[in-house]
């Protein structure tokens, strides 16, 4: 287990007979209480195809599953899972690019899997990653992302709190910021947008307004509460 930020933890899962997954897929975790009450949530897989299965979970204070996964679970515990599932928000090398990845907060998780997938497969598809978070401590995988990736441009924006000397953006993602940082529509980019519902609505809508083909803007909303 890796503590990524104060509220976020990555958990490696040893799943016998795991059939293998694709970058962007998720798995469902079901917790069942002694009285039989059960709660199920879907989590993006954080690793690339061929890598050991891992999920990165953000604690939601009012969540039913994430507090357990981020605070109580320990190495060796067993979890009931279902997956991998979902073939829609998936990127494979043959899907090409150029890729625009837009993450709001913990929406970075499946996009990180896509980045790792690209790297592992030796793909040279050009990538722009626009990563928006409220505070520096919410920039999950920061060290990994800052490591050098040929052909990957990473653009950060912090909307609420910034460290001194911050050189990234300091504003919400809107049409102007997308126009400035995203691939122009003429390059026929393939976009993956993941984050809270309002964030995804805004970004996907503005990308289409900027001329992106709607069928090439894939979205994964995880809502304001519950899940992820």
């Amino acid at each position, binding site marked *: 287990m890796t503590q990524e930020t104060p509220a976020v933890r990555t958990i490696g899962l040893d799943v016998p007979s795991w059939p293998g997954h694709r970058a962007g897929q*998720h*798995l469902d975790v079901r917790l069942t209480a002694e009285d039989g009450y059960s709660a199920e949530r879907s989590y993006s897989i954080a690793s690339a195809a061929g890598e050991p299965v891992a999920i990165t979970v953000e604690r939601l204070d009012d969540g039913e599953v994430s507090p357990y996964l981020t605070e109580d679970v320990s190495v060796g515990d067993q979890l009931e899972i*279902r997956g991998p599932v*979902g073939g829609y*928000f998936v990127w494979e090398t043959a899907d090409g690019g150029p890729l625009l990845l837009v993450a709001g907060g913990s929406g970075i998780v499946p996009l990180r899997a896509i980045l790792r997938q690209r790297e592992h497969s030796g793909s040279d598809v050009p990538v722009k990653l626009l990563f928006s978070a409220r505070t520096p401590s919410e920039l999950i995988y920061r060290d990994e992302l800052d490591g050098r990736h040929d052909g990957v441009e990473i653009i950060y924006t912090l909307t609420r709190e910034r460290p001194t000397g911050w050189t990234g953006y300091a504003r919400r993602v809107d049409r102007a910021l997308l126009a400035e940082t995203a691939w122009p529509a003429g390059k026929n980019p393939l976009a993956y947008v993941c984050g809270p519902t309002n964030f995804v609505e805004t970004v996907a809508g503005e990308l289409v307004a900027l001329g992106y083909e709607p069928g090439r803007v*894939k979205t*994964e*909303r995880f809502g*304001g509460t519950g*899940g992820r």
Partner: protein
Amino acid sequence: MDELDGNGAAGLLQEIFGSDMTVAVATCASCGAVAPIGASGLYAGGPGMVIRCRSCGGVLVVITQVRGRHCVDLMGIRALDMPLQHVAPSGA
């Protein structure tokens, strides 16, 4: 209630249908719009799970659990196109 993406119902749909339904393309019975289930709107916060057309808001799928069974209402889908599963050539 927050709208999610149909992709979020992948696990439940797979349990019921036995294959990945998020890449199945549904034609809305209300307005005729065509979209993958994974790209349709998902409402998962109430009793049962509801998938809606993003063009007209019409209900495509309702899934509830009653007395240990999944109950699936598909009246809002006029047609469903599924990618062919890879079939190995037969014969020697």
